[in-house]
Structures are given as structure tokens and as C-alpha cells.
């Protein structure tokens, strides 16, 4: 019988709500004891409890197919490795930024920094187009000697680097910007393969990378795969 007084009714409502967790045994000790006290005086809850216990038993009954997890795990790790390779070949390496400052950077500050970087990159690229020395025409005849393929680098310059800084930095390795910046602020830099007289240069990509990585005006640099010569 459902209790009729106000406090009894409240207790019944409470018991109705917690009843499922009495069934699965997850009530804490105090609530479980309180529920048992209510059960002694409430036939409706006793009936509900029996019904819900039977339902829980029924839900746990039935054929179960257990799949061996190793094949699924292998597929997951293949995806992890693919993601890792994609990240490593992306303009920015997957290295985590060191937490040198305990304070948290606000989203606004981050957005402003990105915007400043984009503007700086745009200014550099426009400046470079106007300021770089005129180049010889890029056409060649069929009788020309085959061009040596230039090594190409992906480069992200430091936010504060000026056009002059960038020119000076690239001059150290005989490089010049051929493309960029991308949305991510990445420039494509080609290393000169010939000197002014057209003689092949014996350059070392690894040494160029080492030199650029030590430069404070370079945030990131990586070599692109060697282009295939025609």
C-alpha cells in the first residue's frame, strides 16, 4: 500500500526514483538502508522491485557474441600510425610546444598573434617579389643542358623576422622563395643549384637545414622529397 501522509508520499516518490539503483546494487549504504525501511511499508514498491529485478535479470540473459579484440586493435593502431605519418609530413612537426609560461594564453591573444603572423608573411612575400633581383628568363631550348633539380624546403619564418632578415638568412644557403605563404604561413624555398655563370653548385641540403634550424628567424624548416628530374 502506498503511504498516504505527506512525508510518506515524498518518501515513496524518492524510493520510486532510486529503485533501479537498488536493483543494481549501486546505492550507497545510507540510501540502501533508507530504501529498505520504505520497502517494509510499501507494497507497491515491493512489487516494482520484484518486477525491475526480473527485468534486470532478463536484460542480462541471452546469447552473447564476444569478438576477439586483437584484429580491431590492429586496425586502430594502423590508423594511429597513418595519423602520425600525416602529422609528421605536415608543415608543423608534431612536437609539443614547451610550457615555459604557467599563464594561459587567451584565445584573443592567440588570434591576434596568428593574424600578425599572416600579415607579416604577406608583407614579406610582396616585398620579396618587388625587391629581389631580376632573374634570367626561365625558358630554355631543347639543346640546353638538363637542369639540375633544385632542392626545395618548407620554411616558416619567425613572426618578428623582417624582409631583410629573411633575405640575409636565405642568402646563407643560396635559397630563394618560390612559393607561399600557405594558409599556415609556410613558404617554399628553393636552393640554387647553379651559380651565376650557370655552373652546377655542390650544395648540401643537410648542412643547409642545420644552418637554417640554428637561425633565430626560422621557426620551422624541412626538406621536401627530392624532385624527379625530367
Amino acid at each position, binding site marked *: 500500500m502506498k503511504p498516504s501522509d505527506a512525508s510518506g508520499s515524498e518518501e515513496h516518490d524518492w524510493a*520510486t*526514483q*532510486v529503485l*533501479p*539503483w537498488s*536493483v*543494481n*546494487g*549501486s*546505492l550507497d549504504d545510507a540510501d540502501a538502508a533508507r530504501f529498505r525501511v520504505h520497502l517494509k511499508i510499501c507494497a507497491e514498491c515491493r512489487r516494482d522491485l*520484484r*518486477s*525491475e529485478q*526480473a*527485468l*534486470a*535479470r*532478463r*536484460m*542480462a*540473459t*541471452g*546469447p*552473447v*557474441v*564476444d*569478438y*576477439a*579484440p*586483437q*584484429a*580491431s*586493435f590492429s*586496425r*586502430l*593502431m594502423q*590508423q*594511429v600510425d597513418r595519423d602520425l605519418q600525416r602529422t609528421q609530413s605536415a608543415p608543423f612537426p608534431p612536437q609539443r610546444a614547451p610550457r615555459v609560461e604557467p599563464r594561459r594564453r587567451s584565445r584573443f591573444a592567440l588570434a591576434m598573434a596568428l593574424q600578425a603572423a599572416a600579415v607579416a608573411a604577406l608583407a614579406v612575400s610582396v616585398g620579396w617579389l618587388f625587391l629581389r633581383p631580376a632573374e634570367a628568363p626561365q625558358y630554355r631550348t631543347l639543346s640546353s643542358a638538363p637542369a639540375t633539380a633544385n632542392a626545395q624546403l618548407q620554411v616558416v619564418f619567425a613572426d618578428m623576422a623582417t624582409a631583410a632578415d629573411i633575405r640575409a638568412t636565405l642568402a646563407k644557403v643560396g635559397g630563394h622563395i618560390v612559393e607561399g605563404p600557405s594558409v599556415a604561413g609556410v613558404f617554399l624555398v628553393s636552393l640554387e643549384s647553379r651559380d651565376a655563370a650557370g655552373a652546377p653548385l655542390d650544395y648540401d641540403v643537410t648542412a643547409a637545414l642545420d644552418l637554417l634550424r640554428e637561425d633565430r628567424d626560422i621557426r620551422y624548416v624541412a626538406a621536401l622529397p627530392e624532385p624527379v628530374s625530367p
Partner: protein
Amino acid sequence: MNLRRTTGHSSMNMTGPRSEPAMQLAADSAGRAGNAAADPLFIARVAARDRVAFEQLYIAYHRRLSRFLMRFTHNYETAEEIINDTMLIVWNKAEEFRGQSKVSTWIMGIAYRRALKTFKHGDLRRRVEVEWVEIDAIQNHAEAGADEPDVRAEWLEQGLSHLSLEHRMTLEMAYYLGHSCEEIAEICGCPVNTVKTRMFHARLRLRKLLPALGNPVERAP
């Protein structure tokens, strides 16, 4: 009538009808399976990109998650997709886990959100509508005194499949996985009172859908 199951995978083990109550399953399944106290250590090792630890964690949770998800989808490929999406997030976000909740609750919460997204955009609802026509026949069979385990189980499952996803998941998390009300609230990212309300409505709806629920269930051994 046999349950329709899609089993497009060769590496599986079939276990017979189980009689253990949901509470035993909860104790037996991962999360609580193995050494729950060791879970945070596993997460720390996963955060350090320890693949052996991740494999152990994966295997520990695979059974719990696959059994739970298969109750909704009956399709291992879909269940595996949800499990792997879940564990990929665990792999990628392990270093952000600060131990504010139990590891099992954290992982179940990820799986819950991923499953909800899949089921709401998948054809689960269409399947439910198609199967609606079968429910009367099944119920009649049950009321007529048929008490074969297969019939009773499918009859109940038909009723469960007509609950809303949130309601059914709440019911399954309580009765199949054995989670407490507070844990379910954490998994679902909702207040405790919402869980109680969902559970109340799930039970009410189930009784309306299956008015004879009490009889065959109470005849169960």
C-alpha cells in the same frame, strides 16, 4: 524466432545463454574488470605513448564496450567503429585525463557520445520501425505461455528498441552495465535528476509497450 545478427567477423567466440544478473556482468566487465585501481596508471602510460599499456587497456574495455554496443546495433562493424573511435580519443587525449572521474566513466562517456552520434545518424531508427510490425506477434506468443528463452529475450528486446536512445541507454547502463545514477550522469554529461527522469520514463514506456512484461519476466528462473 531467431535474433537477426550481423556477424561479419571471423574471430569471435560464442558463449551460451547467460544467467548471471546484470550486477555480476558489471563486476565482471572491464572498467571494473581487471584492477580498476590500476587504470589511472594505464592512462599515464598511454599518455607516454606506451603501446603495450594501450593494448592492455583496449582489450580490457573491448568486451564491455562491444557487448554494450551490440545490444543497440547487432552489427560488429558499427560497434568496432565506435570502439576504435573511442579508443583513438583515449590515445590522443590521455595526457589530458586528470583523474577527476573514474577511468571507466571517462571512457564510457566518450563511447556514449560517439554511439549517440552514430545511432542518431544511422539507420537504427529505420530498423526499429521495420521491426515494429513483429512486436504484436511476439507479444501474443509470449502471452500465450511461450517461455522459451529466445522468445522472451527477443520480445523484451523489441520493447527496448522502442525506447528513445537516451532512455534505453540509461536503462542499459543501469541494468546491463551496473552503473550508479551519478556515474550515468557523468557519462551522459547531464544532471543526476535528468538520469532519474529518463529512467522513470524508460520504465514507464516499457510497461506500456509490453503490458505483459511482468508475467514472462517474473516466470524467469
